[in-house]
């Protein structure tokens, strides 16, 4: 894997962003273990979406960035992510989680539309200049036309306002409106999941009553019965809380 290209996908920012989401969840009264309240279905779809994109870092698997195969690959990847979001969103046990995943879905829609329309995410040169330095721009794989998921925005770019047009100077990065909405959705999802755990155990009062778990989600995380014991414990604890009060 080419280190420089990997750098340009902001892995550190993802870790930092998730850390920030966890901190927000803690500040809102949640706890880290609660994040497992997020129900996930058909995980293979998410891993497929990721693998399709990561395959482009492997030289023997790389397709022509300007060709139809690249468009199909990106389209399949985004479609797999959408299916995963749809399937997982349908089994969330609480409104906050459903809202969070719906917002993530909106971010997906904005990014997928502009990526498929342009065979990659168009990056504004003007925004890049505002976010980076001339030296960094000269070394950018985007400037060399090699960055598989991004393309340089030109006058022929479709839906340019949905592209990477938002300069983030502190991160030396350029983001799209879909990226911003995506991150907002993740923040809400993580905070809601962390808080839900404490609502279930009766340690904090819910803003709105948590909906009962859908029948198919009672089997727990990833469709296993791994957390059915945990669910029973939290339900029992909740009942004990009611008896005391």
């Amino acid at each position: 894997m080419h280190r420089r290209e990997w750098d340009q996908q902001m892995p550190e920012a993802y870790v930092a962003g998730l850390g920030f989401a966890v901190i927000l969840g803690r500040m809102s009264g949640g706890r880290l273990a609660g994040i497992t309240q997020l129900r996930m279905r058909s995980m293979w779809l998410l891993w497929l979406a990721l693998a399709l994109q990561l395959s482009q870092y492997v030289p023997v698997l790389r397709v022509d960035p300007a060709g139809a195969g690249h468009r199909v690959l990106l389209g399949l990847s985004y479609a797999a992510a959408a299916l995963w979001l749809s399937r997982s969103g349908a089994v969330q046990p609480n409104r906050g989680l459903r809202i969070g995943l719906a917002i993530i879905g909106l971010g997906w829609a904005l990014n997928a539309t502009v990526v498929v329309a342009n065979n990659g995410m168009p990056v504004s040169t003007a925004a890049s200049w505002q976010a980076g330095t001339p030296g960094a721009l000269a070394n950018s794989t985007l400037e060399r036309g090699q960055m598989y998921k991004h393309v340089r925005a030109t006058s022929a770019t479709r839906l340019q306002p949905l592209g990477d047009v938002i300069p983030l100077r502190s991160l030396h990065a350029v983001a799209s409106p879909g990226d911003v909405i995506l991150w907002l959705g993740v923040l809400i999802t993580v905070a809601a999941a962390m808080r839900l755990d404490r609502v279930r155990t009766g340690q904090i009062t819910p803003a709105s009553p948590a909906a009962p778990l859908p029948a198919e989600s009672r089997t727990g995380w990833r469709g296993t019965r791994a957390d059915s014991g945990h669910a029973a414990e939290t339900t029992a604890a909740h009942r004990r809380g009611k008896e005391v009060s």
Partner: protein
Amino acid sequence: MTKITAVRVVATLAALMALLYAVGAPHVVGG
């Protein structure tokens, strides 16, 4: 937090990171 819960927390965070990577498309231009 039990070991199993800790593993599930890490797995969930990893899944969210995969989601951010697969759906998001920010571009780093360097500092």
